[in-house]
């Protein structure tokens, strides 16, 4: 009866790599996820997958300051973000007014805008494309897609007094057992990435499930499969023929976000390169626009090696030399971005020669 709150041992761990040099901020991943999983009234404010502009405030607002774990991996009291000031309520738009004109008049004179008594003051992507710096010397920004990291040591799982959060042994995907959840929201507080949400109608926790019904069929999560930029790679982290092992362990160019939290995320990022800053005369300097200290604050010291490796391999490729890493990141055949063995009975039948 007592809740099992020890670290779950998993047989295998699925992972994802996102190459930040290729993200367009098109939000196709966000929409693919939201249309699939989160359209109910209680979760209309949630984005299991979001893309934020960095440097920036993120979603929820200033999530990196909301606690859960400190810089040494220790528990730090966290807060549950406020719906109005930190997440932002879902907006309703005047779609009917704009697209449903029945007066026969031609021409669009009504702009698409949020409906409501007062103008919205905050929402996800409020500071989209703002970035930082001064034009033309060093203005810059990049895009950071974020989802649950399906950590090896999930803070959410450890925080739940009821044992309502489980790490699936077959693939390491972290899921909420909503039948057990009583909506205390300690998991929301404890996750330093703020990737556990509260369904305000059903009053239970809700989070990214890494599209496990798709993964079980050998399909990548919707956010990865729909990505037009081909920046996402999905597979098992111990598969030496797969993209995750190659990018994370062989080439060491994919690194976790905020490793100092000590949770061992299984979502990894290829950090962004950037053009050079300009001097007062408009000439390129040796300094990248995205400060390495800023990237270090996100990814830790391994970001130096990751960037150096990507740059060195890019130079090789530019000079016509072969580069396994560049070929992988370019994603010539994007089906190779995903290597997930199907586990369904249907697949077993087809591989046995039955249709």
């Amino acid at each position, binding site marked *: *009866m007592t*809740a099992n709150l020890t670290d779950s041992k998993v047989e295998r761990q699925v992972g994802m790599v996102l190459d930040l040099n290729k993200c367009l901020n098109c939000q196709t991943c966000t929409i693919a996820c939201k249309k699939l999983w989160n359209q109910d009234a209680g979760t209309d404010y949630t984005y299991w997958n979001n893309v934020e502009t960095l440097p920036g405030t993120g979603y929820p607002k200033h999530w990196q300051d909301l606690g859960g774990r400190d810089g040494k991996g220790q*528990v730090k009291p*966290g807060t549950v973000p406020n719906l109005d000031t930190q997440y932002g309520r879902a907006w309703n738009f005047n779609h009917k007014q704009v697209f449903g004109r029945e007066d026969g008049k031609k021409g669009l004179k009504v702009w698409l805008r949020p409906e409501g008594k007062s103008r919205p003051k905050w929402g996800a992507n409020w500071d989209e494309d703002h970035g930082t710096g001064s034009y033309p010397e060093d203005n810059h920004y990049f895009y950071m897609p974020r989802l649950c990291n399906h950590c090896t040591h999930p803070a959410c799982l450890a*925080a739940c007094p*009821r044992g309502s959060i489980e790490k699936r042994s077959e693939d390491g995907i972290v899921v909420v057992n909503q039948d057990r959840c009583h909506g205390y929201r*300690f998991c929301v507080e404890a996750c330093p990435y703020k990737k556990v949400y509260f369904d305000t109608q059903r009053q239970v926790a809700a989070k990214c499930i890494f599209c496990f019904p798709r993964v079980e069929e050998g399909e990548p999560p919707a956010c990865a499969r729909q990505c037009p930029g081909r920046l996402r790679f999905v597979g098992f982290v111990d598969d030496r023929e797969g993209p995750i092992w190659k990018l994370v362990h062989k080439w060491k160019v994919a690194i976790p976000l905020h490793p100092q939290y000590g949770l061992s995320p299984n979502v990894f990022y290829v950090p962004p390169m950037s053009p050079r800053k300009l001097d007062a005369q408009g000439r390129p300097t040796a300094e990248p626009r995205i400060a390495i200290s800023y990237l270090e604050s996100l990814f830790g010291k391994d970001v130096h090696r990751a960037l150096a490796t990507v740059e060195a391999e890019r130079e090789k490729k530019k000079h016509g030399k072969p580069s396994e890493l560049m070929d992988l990141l370019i994603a010539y055949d994007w089906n190779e971005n995903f290597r997930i063995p199907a586990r369904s009975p249907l697949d077993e039948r087809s591989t046995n020669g039955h249709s």
Partner: protein
Amino acid sequence: MATHELIAAPVGLQPGAYVKVAYAGRDQAATPAADLDLQKAGQGYRIALQWACPDPVKSIEGNTDVWVDAAAVLAPAAPGAPWITMGAENLPVVGALWRADREDLYRIDAEGLGSVRREAAPEGWRATSKYERGFWTVVFELDAWPSLRKQKMIALAVWRGDAQDRGGLKSVSQGWINVEV
């Protein structure tokens, strides 16, 4: 009505790695006392519970960071069941949970912290509540409660929403309260 002092449920006992650290030092009961009146009513009981609550929270109202007021009465379902941990393995406890945002009671069963099961209360279990002049009054009307009849002990718990009480963050009676029923 008899007044019973309440204590903060010990945070150090809470399951999991987070609550006991993040809420360490939370040793003051958000609700320091509650009045209890327990009367036999036919084959069952009428239990009135009243406590001071300056800022009632009656609904989550679609918010993420709001917790509602709640209260529970608990009885041992086996001799020797500990009250502070809501029972233990093979030493169950059983009770009724009222929440300010629900008309119907929950029946709760537990065998230790983190093991509470909530389900719709039996048809004969009802509660009425009112908030007046800074006080909640909740009257539990239970047509039968065999555990209370057998063990003749009850424990109280109050959750104050505006203090972010929930789960193990609660004010509880200082032990089982012996009752004459």
